[in-house]
């Protein structure tokens, strides 16, 4: 605890948390571990502890080890050329901070990232020292998510993987061209090397653990990555295809999207005044869910003629509108895979429908109770042969019904307010 009383710790925390906040991941899921006589455990479904003023969940103490960097990535706040204040934690400070926050149940664990000080190996060795201190000396069994730095020696990555629950490598940009433009020190093959290494070692580790249950776990919660959205002209199709490849080829647990917040004034980037493309980020996440849980493929959602997601309607509705010939589907007969393709029906409601209809056919009135979103689903289904949509099944008509109501164009004075009162709504 005494380490925490050092006078400059508060400032370090401000700098190093402030610089880490653009990392999107806060998941604390993927591992279940009972406490083993030390401090902490892990829950497979992940636990959120609070939500910050931007509405993002806070589960982990998310900090950089240091923000001193040798790279000069154009989009990044820590790039070498930036005149931002610099700081670095000591291993002991970081370990104690994590433990004290954890005991008070502020956090679920640690998310440790870092800028590259001197070189990747030097930085990774520092990170390993801090994590070893936590795991061995403090007997910390909470969740640890750590960033692997491309270019690090593979033996160091292997050691990192035995200390952490999840390891991630941020690819940041989905195409070699964008990388060359904005992050000239990074190259796609070098970025993918540790991703491939972790994938192969995890597979080997799982095989080993089937034979020896007590073998140490290597990255038990899997790996994830992150793409920046909106800093380059890369299309949604490029982003989603890249994600799909990562899920298939390297068994990634998650691909995160981060709407680009302009930090640096550079002719290669959007202007500093540009707003982060939050709507686009939201649509990408919806599409990502369709890939992971709904059996969709990137090529079904987007193609060369339409490389970007619709901002007005979600990607599942757009898919349904383009494939109206398969609808309406009969709720009591459609296969589980077909049900998942209906807008307004999710994984839970599809499962409930399948379970319940085995005993008796479902009525239209039952659907709401089961969790189906009627206002979207009604145009795409029949119930006991009857169609409840009430409008012809034509793309433009259904689309117009599903669009969110337009914002009121003028203020309608109320009879009961004083005329012209400036209501703030």
């Amino acid at each position, binding site marked *: 605890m005494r380490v925490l009383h050092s006078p400059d710790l508060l400032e370090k925390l401000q700098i190093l948390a402030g610089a880490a*906040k653009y990392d999107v991941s806060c998941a604390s899921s993927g591992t279940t571990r009972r406490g083993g006589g030390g401090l902490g455990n892990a829950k497979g479904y992940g636990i959120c*502890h609070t939500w*910050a003023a931007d509405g993002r969940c806070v589960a982990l103490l998310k900090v950089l080890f240091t923000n001193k960097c040798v790279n000069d990535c154009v989009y990044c706040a820590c790039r070498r050329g930036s005149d931002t204040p610099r700081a670095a934690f000591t291993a002991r400070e970081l370990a104690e901070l994590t433990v004290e*926050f954890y005991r008070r149940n502020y956090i679920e664990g640690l998310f440790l990232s870092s800028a590259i000080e001197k070189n990747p190996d030097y930085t990774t060795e520092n990170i390993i020292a801090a994590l070893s201190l936590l795991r061995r000396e403090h007997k910390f069994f909470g969740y640890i998510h750590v960033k692997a730095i491309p270019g690090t020696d593979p033996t160091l990555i292997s050691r990192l993987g035995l200390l952490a629950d999840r390891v991630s490598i941020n690819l940041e940009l989905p195409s070699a061209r964008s990388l060359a433009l904005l992050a000239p020190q990074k190259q796609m093959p070098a970025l993918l090397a540790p991703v491939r290494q972790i994938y192969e070692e995890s597979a080997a580790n799982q095989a080993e653990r089937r034979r020896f249950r007590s073998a140490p776990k290597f990255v038990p919660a899997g790996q994830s990555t992150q793409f920046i959205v909106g800093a380059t002209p890369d299309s949604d199709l490029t982003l989603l295809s890249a994600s799909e490849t990562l899920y298939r080829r390297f068994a990634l647990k998650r691909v995160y999207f981060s709407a680009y917040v302009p930090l640096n004034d550079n002719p290669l980037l959007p202007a500093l005044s540009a707003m982060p493309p939050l709507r686009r980020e939201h649509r990408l996440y919806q599409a990502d869910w369709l890939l992971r849980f709904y059996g969709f493929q990137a090529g079904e959602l987007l193609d060369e003629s339409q490389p970007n997601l619709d901002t007005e309607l979600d990607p599942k509705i757009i898919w349904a509108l383009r494939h109206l010939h398969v609808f309406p589907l009969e709720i009591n007969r459609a296969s589980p895979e077909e049900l998942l393709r209906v807008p307004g029906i999710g994984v839970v409601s599809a499962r409930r429908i399948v379970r319940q209809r085995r005993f008796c056919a479902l009525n239209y009135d039952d659907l709401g109770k089961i969790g189906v979103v009627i206002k979207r689903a009604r145009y795409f289904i029949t119930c006991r042969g009857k169609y409840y949509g009430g409008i012809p099944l034509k793309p433009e008509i259904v689309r117009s019904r599903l669009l969110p109501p337009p914002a009121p164009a003028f203020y309608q004075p109320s009879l009961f307010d004083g005329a012209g009162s400036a209501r703030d709504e």
Partner: protein
Amino acid sequence: MIDYLYDETFDGLLTCIFAHYYEEKAAGIYPERLYQPSLLHGARAVAADRERAGRVYAALEQKAARYVLRKIYYTFLSAVPGKENIILAYTVLAFRLGPRLTACRTRPEVLALETASDRVDTERERFLGFVRFRDMGRFLYAAIAPDHNILPLLADHFTDRLAGEYFMIHDTGRDTALVWDKRDPSLVPFRQTGNWRPNEDERLCQSLWREYFEHIAISERRNTRLQGQFVPRRYRAHLTEFQGFGPASG
């Protein structure tokens, strides 16, 4: 038909259900403390009976399913008015339908119970994150004010996680505390007296946490409405990171 009155324990409730089958049919089950006599039915107080409750418990487990029992227990912990009658109707149906019951969400008896137990489960999960301990020097203390009586559901998680610490989680609304002495968890009646002042380490930790909380938000993405959906205002009084800020916070 008769109204059964019980002592607000789970055993008591199950004993009333036993009586419903083996003595007189129940018109309803109510907490004895709050009961207002009905014009339609007589009323009788039923003392909790471990053995009878155990028989209902075992029968439900055998005839329906384990998670049916969990749903009933969660509903019992809820603050939903009339939860006893929701449980009674559900139990009667459970004995009739068996495991098929859980596939019948649209039946009113099932929907009412599942809605209540889902609410309790949601709040339980929230509070795995929302408990905030303060280091009192010799033990950790946390105050919570949940809508439902979720304290018993937190025991397993926190005693495992903080096995090496003495701690107490205090439900201020129900004057109950979960106490862990590094060996056994216990639920005890508890009312805080006096003003416990945080020591210097504790104050430092709280200020570091608040500072962190403030700096982790991206100001360009500010969205307090979204934040409000995840952290409803009623929970914020006991959350360290929301103390010492204005109502909009962050």
